[in-house]
């Protein structure tokens, strides 16, 4: 039962354009969401998070949007840069049921072409 799903295994965009990565979840108890970025042969690094009491959170070129009714979140990167090329994972947690554990999606490979 895949509770967090990233339906696009890969995404390719041109440098300077917007990258939009999507994530869907099924567990209505999830109330905190995170995005991580991973380069090959390195551990994931935290990018940005959002609590379910918000619908948007922004940090520089990165913005995360949360649509609770649709159980959908997205990560926008504007403008995209070649150094953004990596695998992006979304993750979710539910305070009441799972404490500190995170449930991850399958990941989306983003390629930003110069």
């Amino acid at each position: 039962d895949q509770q967090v799903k990233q339906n696009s295994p890969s995404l390719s965009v041109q440098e300077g354009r917007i990258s939009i990565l999507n994530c869907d979840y099924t567990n209505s108890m999830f109330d905190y969401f995170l995005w991580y970025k991973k380069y090959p042969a390195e551990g994931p690094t935290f990018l940005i998070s959002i609590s379910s009491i918000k619908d948007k959170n922004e940090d520089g070129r990165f913005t995360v949007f949360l649509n609770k009714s649709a159980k959908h979140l997205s990560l926008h990167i504007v403008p995209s840069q070649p150094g953004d090329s990596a695998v992006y994972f979304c993750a979710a947690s539910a305070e009441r049921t799972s404490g500190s554990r995170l449930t991850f999606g399958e990941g989306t490979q983003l390629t930003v072409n110069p």
Partner: protein
Amino acid sequence: DVKVTQSSRYLVKRTGEKVFLECVQDMDHENMFWYRQDPGLGLRLIYFSYDVKMKEKGDIPEGYSVSREKKERFSLILESASTNQTSMYLCASSPHRGRQYFGPGTRLTVL
């Protein structure tokens, strides 16, 4: 800065061997986690621990065990390695709910 270190970056073992993967964090975090990452499957939780000597099964604990004798150290043990345990193993720690800090990973190959 939080630092999570893993004992090996690359490891090659033979089927049936006992394998130890060690993880150390330097920020006095309560929670520690072991994941494996496989293409198309994302990060899957093997075991986690929220206190010394405490452990809980994650989503795929079969074939693995863990040990947490000290707060800063969390070990993953493959009792009898099999080829389907060839994977990238990632350790993480967190002080509380939410953001987890990851180590660099161990690429394990079982022949």
